[in-house]
């Protein structure tokens, strides 16, 4: 079959090739399969839909931790006012598998002695 609109196909492939930075992450396929842990100090936060993002200073490196959307954080008992600048948090979850991307999707958020379990069904 002849391709009727080669220009359209070209534009689509070009769009794929230059696809930009992380926006929203569905599932876990984009992340490393192994669990990892990260401790840092909160620099800035952007909570809410489609999911919250917490920027951390981890020994001078800037990391972004993806936390839940409002219902997931609420279910875990994690409230917005706990994640404010200067708070020391430990994130347990999965790091991005993309080389050089300092991004971790949280399964658990640990503040002080309290663990807020965002994904109780995941190890």
């Amino acid at each position, binding site marked *: 079959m002849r391709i009727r*609109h080669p220009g359209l196909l070209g534009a689509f492939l070009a769009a794929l090739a230059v*696809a930009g930075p992380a926006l929203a992450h569905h599932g876990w396929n984009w992340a490393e399969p192994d669990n990892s842990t990260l401790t840092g100090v909160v620099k800035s936060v952007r909570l809410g839909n489609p999911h919250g993002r917490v920027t951390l200073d981890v020994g001078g490196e800037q990391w972004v931790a993806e936390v839940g959307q409002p219902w997931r954080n609420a279910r875990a008992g994690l409230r917005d006012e706990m994640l404010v600048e200067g708070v020391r948090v430990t994130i347990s979850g999965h790091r991005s598998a993309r080389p050089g991307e300092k991004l971790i999707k949280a399964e658990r958020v640990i503040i002080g002695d309290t663990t807020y379990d965002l994904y109780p069904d995941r190890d």
Partner: protein
Amino acid sequence: MFGELLAAIDASALSVHLRHSIWLYPVVSAAHILGIALLVGAIVPMDARLIGLWPSLPVALFARTILPFAAGGCILAIGTGTLLFIVQPADYAALPVFWTKIGLVLAGVTNALVLRRSAAWRRAIAQTTGTTQALRLSGSLSLGIWLTTLFLGRLLGFL
């Protein structure tokens, strides 16, 4: 300038409300999918007829029955899509895939409006059978545009 506009949208009461809502955001998201389902579900058979499938069935029949669902779905998808954009405007605006998608939506709407205002369309509505080169071209453009738009839209959730 554009960055300030995005920041203003981001700081708006509507954006903040959508962002922190438990139910509204998923409802808007689901309504967006409903709009896409109606649009694509109706436009595929409409375009298939324009391209030449079912030549014995009048184009007017399709225009009367399924075309309003395509148009309604399109309006719903654009309305809810605007609300989804408002939640994180700077993030979407930074993505070439997003702007490609918006360009395709504009192209798809323009293509449909151009066809509706054309002599080819009036003739197609008046006559009962067959298709023409102009209808075939418009139908295949429409099919390519909307299916690519759907794919890019889904892709946005994975970037």
